[in-house]
């Protein structure tokens, strides 16, 4: 097996772990942790593909953008979580039914 295939196989396992966490857990913090793990896998895939095609410079520029977006998404998600906890006293996704008609 080539090095690239082995790397992407291991990346697939990392991404699977993240998706499993997002699907199975009910805690909002764990949802965000799963999202982080998935995005780590995506970054690794971008850099690995950049190394394969000899274009690491562009891959790095893309990853820098991804990191900035990731930080903003996590900060906004955690801010909403803390606000929701203060209002409803819970950090459970199934309790996020305040707008239910």
């Amino acid at each position, binding site marked *: 097996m080539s090095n690239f295939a082995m790397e992407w196989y291991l990346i697939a396992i990392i991404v699977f772990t993240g998706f499993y*966490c997002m699907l199975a857990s009910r805690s909002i913090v764990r949802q965000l942790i799963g999202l982080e793990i998935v995005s*780590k896998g995506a970054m690794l895939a971008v*850099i690995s593909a950049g190394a394969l095609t000899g274009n690491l410079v562009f891959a790095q520029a893309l*990853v*820098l*953008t991804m990191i900035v977006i990731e930080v903003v998404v996590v900060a906004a998600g955690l801010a909403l979580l803390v606000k929701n906890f203060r209002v409803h006293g819970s950090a459970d996704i199934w309790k996020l039914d305040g707008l239910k008609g």
Partner: protein
Amino acid sequence: MTTHNLLFVLAAVFALWAVMAKKLLTSAIMLALVSVAVSLIFFDFSAPWAGVFELSVCAGLITVLFIGAVSLIRADEDKRPENRAFAYALPLAAAVFAIAAWFYLPPFFEELAAGRQMAAGGGTIGTALWGLRRPDLLGQVLMLAAGVFVIKSVFPRRTENK
């Protein structure tokens, strides 16, 4: 197995640990260790800029954000512990996925790698970031402004009711 693949395995193990940890604080710390492993992989790929950003922003800033949020909602974690069945099932699910993927994914990835198109390459990260990908920087600034706006609107300044 080379050091390179070992780092990937390390990142996967830390990711599993982050999902399986009982305490949210342990999960956050394990996520930081995933980031450290990922940044070491970037350095190993000779992508130092991505590695530095990953190490400082993801392993530093995001961990601080997570630990802050977890400490703010700690009462909930103690009062209503989560059902842990999903975490105990994860090693089994991951093993099933790893074994099934071993037969199907590597041939697919080999095919992807065979169809690659070599880029011209060259240049520096400065040229790529400031010259060729300048709209990305504008997007990043807008994204940061949006994040600040979200936090400002979620936590408004308290005003006295007169």
